[in-house]
């Protein structure tokens, strides 16, 4: 056997290498998938909040009831009692528990402030003390450096404190006197994750009480005082080093069982509450697993198929070269089985020798991918899927070898004895090709129509390429023959001979099929990588909204603008945004922005910036401004009928504090009255804007007539212009009751009154829009009528109009509305405490952020959170979908190499025959240059046709499979997925393949021509 293999060592190496490639692809797929899943778990554990990575058991006892008194009060469960609630099987999956205790207390020193008092086991090791020491005795606390600065606390400061129990708790709250033992400047992020120790010092987070940062106390503090409502907590963190995907996926049902068990605790027992958002960990991991199981095979399977195709090519070439030997075997009495056995003895041995090499390559590539792509140091696990893949690879290699050997073994001896195997001319399909073509067409057809899912769907792109390759390869022979004959008739012998050689060479079909599949996979993989990268970038930008976003605590629109000014922000580089977040999945998020700056800074769909600016432009009406603590105007009525109840006229103003107010002007009398001067007190010392006139009366009282006002002025005697009639709008044009501006001239305004029974009717200045224009994404909320809908305004429900629609809006989900902040503020309502004030930066600038942070703290606001687009992109890059798609780079490179190998194999297999044929031409006088043209003509057209066909089928496969490739870790709520093809990438890759393979083909052609000597004619075959 060794002698046989040593006779054609290069062939043996090539066959073994190709079998190794097939094996490597098969084994690497589950290996990489598993490593990817484990890495996904590590990433989730590293980035997930404490609410997901640790099981939190809390107990705050039962408070004395105001009706039942203290009889049913229960203290919170102790650490031991909490630990006993967790089943052993669940405890074994988690790390060592960490106990904690919390109360909320307030102090008046030097001014009222409240915050939490916290003890957590092992706390001192995770605090960086700036002054003093970590507390150890009862009554000792450590305060934050921000508190020390804001409130003047330091080591030795005594702070009398009172507990803040829940409202309605009877009895007196506990009191204690704390002594500051130290000041902490920093704390370990992992240990204190989720505790938010700092960030609220001196602020009013809910725009109510002033807060201070957390006070860190020693455990005895909680035993020394009879706190009314202390919280006892026991946290069981997950151990990242010991938590793999299998362990992680076991947790949710166990958590559910524990939750159920806690809910069934007997009445009267102290409360025990489980808080563990473990599905926030498992869902992304499961989604990542699902994506990896789609993408990894989608990329690796075609490469494996390609390897198998090239292996089939190499084996066919080898078997063809052994036809004379098979003939000898048949002539000496071996039957078909014996002939097949003769071939298998050598070819299968060589092919299977490549299998262990392939396993080694798979592990090597797995380590390489693990080092280059995956974070951490996940192990490469050999589990059942890896073994199954290995068995599959062995079966594929064996079956392929058997089929090739069987085909040659079955040939009649007379055919085996022919130097050139008989070929059916024309378009006739062999049985195997016909079956493959039919199966390919069925699979692709089912896939395109959406009737094919699951593993077979993943093979569709490769199958499509194979089908195209088969068709093109079959067409090559008759087309090349006809073209060759035409060239002969046209008197062009070199191209004619080249084409006729292409037609008669047995290897042409295999080369075409191989290069078509390789080019298709290259283009498909390249597009998948590019489209994935593009979508991740857009998703990161949409998720954060801008290169950097800082969320502030407390404050108002005016103070935010002051912070921007104080921080000396370069013009246009930072813009305020107010966010009313969506409450539920289907709810609409509302963002209030300054359109011009927002369009420049925020991430928006292409072309949406100009539409936002245009759609959200403020009404083109100048405001009517007044200043003074007293306003003066003239007022007259004409034919006023006031009905049976008092009728009052009021002037609506927007104060400099941003709040609207109604200033009573006069009680109206019936009939016609001459103009008279009216003076009213108004809090407009710092300036107001007139927003409307209001008529109030009792319900069902009818009022008609006209009112003329004029000469309105504040502290300066200059009357303000009241505009023209079109500057005033009826609030509800469909209502039967209305105030209308019938005449306006020279500073006076005539108001037509027609009240059919409403208690108040409003004539609004158009400077305040009656409905807020909005740019929307997704569907309008329920109850919308046409383009009108009710959105969440600055303080609650607000009438809005959809002025434009875009595919998606930044930092929002399925649907969102974008409105003009300045215009919305004209409505004059107090800010919703739940609304988030944010600053969006046009760049990630640490120095600028530091200045903003400092300016915010100076105005008793703090930066609660900073989100960066780069961090969001990093997180998306560290996901199963990204890692899976990045495999496409390896696949693309491997495809090109395998294709090059195929061209090389074809050249090596045929060079003797080709040089002999060229030697015949040489014998008949063809010069060397002509031989070179013939030799190159046999190579280059085949390569180019195949690469073009492959590129086209790769483009088609990309289009067909676009929706099957998971591009992001989770399906985005917003409609931002863009699966359009990356044409530049695909065309460049096609060009690269064409150039690289043509260069190799040129080299083979030149070498063949150079090795053509007349001696070839007398060489043995």
């Amino acid at each position, binding site marked *: 056997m060794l*002698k*046989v293999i*040593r*006779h054609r060592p290069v062939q043996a190496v090539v066959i073994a290498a190709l079998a190794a490639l097939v094996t490597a692809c098969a084994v690497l797929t589950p290996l990489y998938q598993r490593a990817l899943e484990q890495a996904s778990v590590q990433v989730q554990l590293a980035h997930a909040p404490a609410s997901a990575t640790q099981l939190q058991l809390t107990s705050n006892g039962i408070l004395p009831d105001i009706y039942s008194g203290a009889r049913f009060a229960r203290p919170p469960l102790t650490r031991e009692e909490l630990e006993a609630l967790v089943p052993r099987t669940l405890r074994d999956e988690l790390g060592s528990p960490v106990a904690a205790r919390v109360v909320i207390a307030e102090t008046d020193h030097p001014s009222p402030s409240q915050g939490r008092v916290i003890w957590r086991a092992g706390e001192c090791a995770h605090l960086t003390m700036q002054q003093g020491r970590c507390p150890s005795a009862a009554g000792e606390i450590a305060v934050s450096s921000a508190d020390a600065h804001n409130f003047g606390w330091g080591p030795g400061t005594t702070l009398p404190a009172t507990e803040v129990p829940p409202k309605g708790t009877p009895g007196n709250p506990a009191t204690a006197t704390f002594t500051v033992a130290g000041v902490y400047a920093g704390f370990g992020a992992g240990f204190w994750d989720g505790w938010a120790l700092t960030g609220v010092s001196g602020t009013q987070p809910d725009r109510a009480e002033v807060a201070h940062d957390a006070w860190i106390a020693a455990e005895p503090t909680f035993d020394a005082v009879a706190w009314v409502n202390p919280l006892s907590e026991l946290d069981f963190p997950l151990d990242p080093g010991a938590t793999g995907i299998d362990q992680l996926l076991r947790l949710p049902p166990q958590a559910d069982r524990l939750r159920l068990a806690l809910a069934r605790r007997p009445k009267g027992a102290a409360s025990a509450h489980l808080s563990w958002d473990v599905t926030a960990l498992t869902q992304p991991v499961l989604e990542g697993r699902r994506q990896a199981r789609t993408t990894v095979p989608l990329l690796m399977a075609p490469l494996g198929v390609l390897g198998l195709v090239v292996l089939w090519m190499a084996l066919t070439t080898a078997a063809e070269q052994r036809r*004379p*030997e098979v*003939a*000898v*075997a*048949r*002539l*000496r*009495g*071996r*039957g*078909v089985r*014996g002939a097949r056995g003769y071939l298998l003895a050598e070819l299968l041995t060589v092919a299977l020798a490549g299998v262990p090499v392939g396993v080694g390559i798979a592990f090597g590539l797995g380590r390489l991918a693990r080092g280059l792509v995956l974070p951490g140091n996940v192990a490469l696990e050999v589990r059942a899927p890896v073994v199954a893949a290995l068995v599959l690879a062995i079966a594929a290699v064996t079956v392929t070898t058997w089929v090739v050997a069987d085909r040659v073994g079955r040939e*009649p*001896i*007379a055919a085996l*004895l022919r130097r050139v195997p008989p070929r059916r*001319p024309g378009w006739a399909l062999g049985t195997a090709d016909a079956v493959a073509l039919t199966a390919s067409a069925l699979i692709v057809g089912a896939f395109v129509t959406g009737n094919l899912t699951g593993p077979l769907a993943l093979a569709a792109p490769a199958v499509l390429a194979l089908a195209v390759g088969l068709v093109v390869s079959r067409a090559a022979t008759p087309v090349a023959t006809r073209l060759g004959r035409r060239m002969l008739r046209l008197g062009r012998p070199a191209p004619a001979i080249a084409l006729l050689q292409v037609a008669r060479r047995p290897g042409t079909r295999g080369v075409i099929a191989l290069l078509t599949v390789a080019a298709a996979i290259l283009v498909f993989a390249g597009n998948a990588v590019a489209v994935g990268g593009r979508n991740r970038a857009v998703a990161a930008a949409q998720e954060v909204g801008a290169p950097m976003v800082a969320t502030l605590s407390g404050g108002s629109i005016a103070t935010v603008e002051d912070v921007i000014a104080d921080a000396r922000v370069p013009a246009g580089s930072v813009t305020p945004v107010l966010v009313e977040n969506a409450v539920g999945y289907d709810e609409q998020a509302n963002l209030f922005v300054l359109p011009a700056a927002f369009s420049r800074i925020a991430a928006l769909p292409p072309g949406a910036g100009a539409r936002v600016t245009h759609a959200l432009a403020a009404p083109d009406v100048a405001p009517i401004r007044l200043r003074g603590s007293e306003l003066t105007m003239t007022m007259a009525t004409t034919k006023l009928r006031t009905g049976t109840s008092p009728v009052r006229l009021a002037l609506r103003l927007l104060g400099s504090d941003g709040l609207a107010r109604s200033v009573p002007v006069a009680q109206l009398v019936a009939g016609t009255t001459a103009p008279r001067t009216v003076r009213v007190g108004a809090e407009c010392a710092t300036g107001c804007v007139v927003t409307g006139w209001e008529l109030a009366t009792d319900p069902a009282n009818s009022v008609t007539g006209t009112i003329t006002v004029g000469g309105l002025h504040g502290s300066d005697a200059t009357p303000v212009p009241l505009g023209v009639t079109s500057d005033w709008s009826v609030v509800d044009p469909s209502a039967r009751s209305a105030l209308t501006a019938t005449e306006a001239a020279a500073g006076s305004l005539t108001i037509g009154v027609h009240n059919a029974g409403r208690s108040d009717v409003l004539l609004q200045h158009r400077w305040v829009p009656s409905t807020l224009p909005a740019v929307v994404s997704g569907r309008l909320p329920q109850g919308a009528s046409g383009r009108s809908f009710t959105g969440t305004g600055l303080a609650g429900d607000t009438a809005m109009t959809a002025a434009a629609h875009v595919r998606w809006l930044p930092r929002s989900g399925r649907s969102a509305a974008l409105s003009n902040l300045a215009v919305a503020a004209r409505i004059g309502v107090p800010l919703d405490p739940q609304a988030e004030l944010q600053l969006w930066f046009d760049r990630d600038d640490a120095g600028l952020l530091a200045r903003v942070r400092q300016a915010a703290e100076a105005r008793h606001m703090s930066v609660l959170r900073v989100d960066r687009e780069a961090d969001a992109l990093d997180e998306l890059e560290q996901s199963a979908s990204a890692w899976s798609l990045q495999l496409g780079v390896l696949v693309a490179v491997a495809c090109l190499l395998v294709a090059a190998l195929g061209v090389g194999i074809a050249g090596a297999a045929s060079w003797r025959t080709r040089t002999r044929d060229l030697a015949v031409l040489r014998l008949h006088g063809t010069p060397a240059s002509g031989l070179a043209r013939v030799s190159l003509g046999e190579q280059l057209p085949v390569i180019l046709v195949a690469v073009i066909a492959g590129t086209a089928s790769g483009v088609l496969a990309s289009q067909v499979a676009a929706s099957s490739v998971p591009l992001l870790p989770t399906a985005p709520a917003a409609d931002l997925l863009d699966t359009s093809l990356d044409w530049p990438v695909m065309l460049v890759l096609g060009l690269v393949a064409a150039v690289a393979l043509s260069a190799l083909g040129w080299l083979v052609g030149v070498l063949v021509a150079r090795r053509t000597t007349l001696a070839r004619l007398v060489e*043995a*075959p």
Partner: protein
Amino acid sequence: MTGTAVITRRLVHIYRTEGQDVAALSGVDLTVGAGEMIGLLGPSGAGKSTLLGLMGGLFRPSAGQIRVGDLELSAATTHQLDELRATTVSLLLQGARRNLLPYASPRENVEFAQSATRARGAGVRDPGEVLASVGLDGLGTAPLGSLTPGQLQLAALAVALAPGPGVLLADEPTGQLDHRARDVVLATLARVNREWGTTVVLVTHDAEVAAALPRTVTIRDGRIGGEGRSGEEYSVVSADGFLPLPAHVLADLPAGTLVRFHPADGTYQLLVEDEDLP
């Protein structure tokens, strides 16, 4: 070892190619006795190799019968044909290397050729003895590339004889050899025929080779054109009464000439139409 007889009756073989059928054999009646050594002569395309291939069971005749020993080849199964080639009939292809495994030594080639025979339980000679019988003792382990063309042909002959066949079919066994090598090969064939009793049928274009054979059969246009025995040329009457004329007679009697057979003294005279009887 004893030879095996080969008998053909009205053997016809037609090649079907793209667009046309070609009759390679048009009714061949031939009897090769067991242990006989004959040469098949004839111009290119006459059907010699086709007849050889049919005798070797490489393909089935289009019509007629061909019997090798007791086996009627036209009705034989694939298994029977494989067994025939393993035990009874050996084909020596034109071109020595076509009969040899290129990576194996002469001895290994002989062993390979005997493997199918051994698998069927038939006895075979020792490979060394086979090689010695063709004069290659001492070269059994030599690489094929180191052998002369004559030695290669002898190695191929050894491989053909390895199973101990009853019939050896040799296609141009002396082609591309110099005179000395040719003579060696011929002498070896004659010795094998004489000592082993192997029936030998060989195809040759070489007149000198043909002259050395005890019997020659000329194939012309798919039929037996004549025979040569002991230096004399004979025309063979076929079963259907066809009598091919020798080439030199054809030159004087072109196609369309009317002739009569006139009995005379226990034999027949061939008279052209315008000749008078004595």
